[in-house]
């Protein structure tokens, strides 16, 4: 089954993206990506631009409400996601613990919902 690892990062981690090639956080991410691919569990994923680049849209009473910034105002913000193919939640939690963001931010593990996808796509 597939799991999404939702990567929540601190402002420091977002700032570190501008660091040079020898940045340890970047190195840890490269290594993590390689380990995921080599273990045959990597399905896909993407990093996101920092939260201040986000724009949130709602329709309130038919009127557009556009808010500058991310959906939730929290210290740690969604910084990217990874989809993994794994046999169990336990295995997904193992991989989440190895994720470089786990030690300085947080990693939320969510099962992907193929049932709901089928209902949506018909």
């Amino acid at each position, binding site marked *: 089954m597939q799991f999404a690892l939702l990567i929540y990062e601190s402002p420091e981690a977002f700032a570190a993206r501008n660091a040079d090639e020898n940045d340890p956080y970047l190195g840890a991410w490269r290594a993590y990506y*390689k380990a995921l691919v080599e273990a045959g569990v990597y399905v896909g994923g993407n990093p996101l631009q920092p939260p201040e680049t986000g724009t949130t849209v709602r329709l309130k009473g038919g009127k557009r409400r556009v808010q500058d910034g991310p959906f939730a105002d929290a210290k740690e913000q969604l910084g990217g996601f990874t989809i993994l193919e794994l046999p169990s939640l336990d295995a997904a939690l193992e991989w989440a613990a*190895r994720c470089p963001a786990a030690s300085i931010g947080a990693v939320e593990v969510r099962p992907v919902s193929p049932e709901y996808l089928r209902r949506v796509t018909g």
Partner: protein
Amino acid sequence: MSGSESENTHWSVHRTIERVARESYGRLVAYLSVHTRDVGSAEDALSNALVRALETWPRDGVPQNPEAWLMTTARHSIIDQVRHQQVAEASEPTLALLREDSNEPNMTLSTDFPDERLKLLFVCAHPAIDPAMHTPLMLQTVLGLDAARIAHAFLISPTTMGQRLVRAKTKIRDGGIRFEIPQARELPERLDAVLEAIYAAFGIGWDDMAGVDQRGRDLAEEAIWLARVLLQLTLGEAEVHGLLALMLHCEARRAARRGPDGRYVPLSEQDAQKWSRPLIEEAEQHLGEASSRGLTGRFQLEAAIQSVHAERARSGRTAWPAIMLFYQQLIRVSPTLGTQTGYAAAVAEANGPEAGLAALDGIDRHDVCAYQPYWAVRAHLLQQLGKTAEALDAFDRAIGLAEDPAVKQFLLQRRG
């Protein structure tokens, strides 16, 4: 009595309750559940008794025999529960417990109720119980750790851990698992499962690094405590001595495993003067006891390897050929990935990196795709051999599979 005096009494009573709870928890749960096979009810009853103790002891004073008081109170709580559910529906074992209570009125006042913890340990590591639950069950039923703390250590959500524990206890109650010491012919195998479960608790505390994190330290201490209880109950089985020796040797190095800045320090670079002399001595005593029985089980061999490492504190060097030989024997009894990787590392130290790499190549590549130590050793050996590109690749795998930030940091620096 002045306010502060009464507060002092209050705290000392609380400490007494904590101490009695810790020391007697497993003994009481084991005794209360041995007839009913209902570990969950026994735990509930004991919790009720501890709550009662917190209410009444500060007021009435600590009873002369706190453990017997808790046992009697817990037993009454079970009886109340049964009455509540109507006696007609009560199961036969529970009725037996009730009868026992009424037939032996003095029994509850005496201190010497039998120690049934060994039976409880065998139940927790019973082959009918999911092996992944052996350790959590022991931590909860014998040591009284709460589900949330166990979940934390096992990297499982507290709700899930709670559900799994309840399911396992239901299986013990309804699945016909008997509270007994296994027959002689199956004893070694059954004892092995108990030892494995204790060592798993220690291993989690250990990997979890490294002495800085409180959750790791706690769990390692709990595992050592469990092994001491087991040793006492089995009257000195060789492998129990072996397990205790192994854990004490590792524990002796805790202070040396991190630099002052929290940096990870590998065993070969640890300052041997920082190792705990008393713990090493105690470990050596247990290893001596074990080997005097002339058997060489898995845990004795692992302890023997750690004993050779500990020698460095005295001699200043490590006898790698001896470690290699112990690993060879260990592979015969326990051919795990850990053993094979340890063997390869020892071969490399004794006979050079080329030989070590050959030993690593003997391990199935598929099995190691998510096994971190393999890649760490491999990276180290490839680097020594000047195979830079391959070394970088192996370092990446090792870093990507590492959980501890300090280990990641260490490997990133080595990788260069």
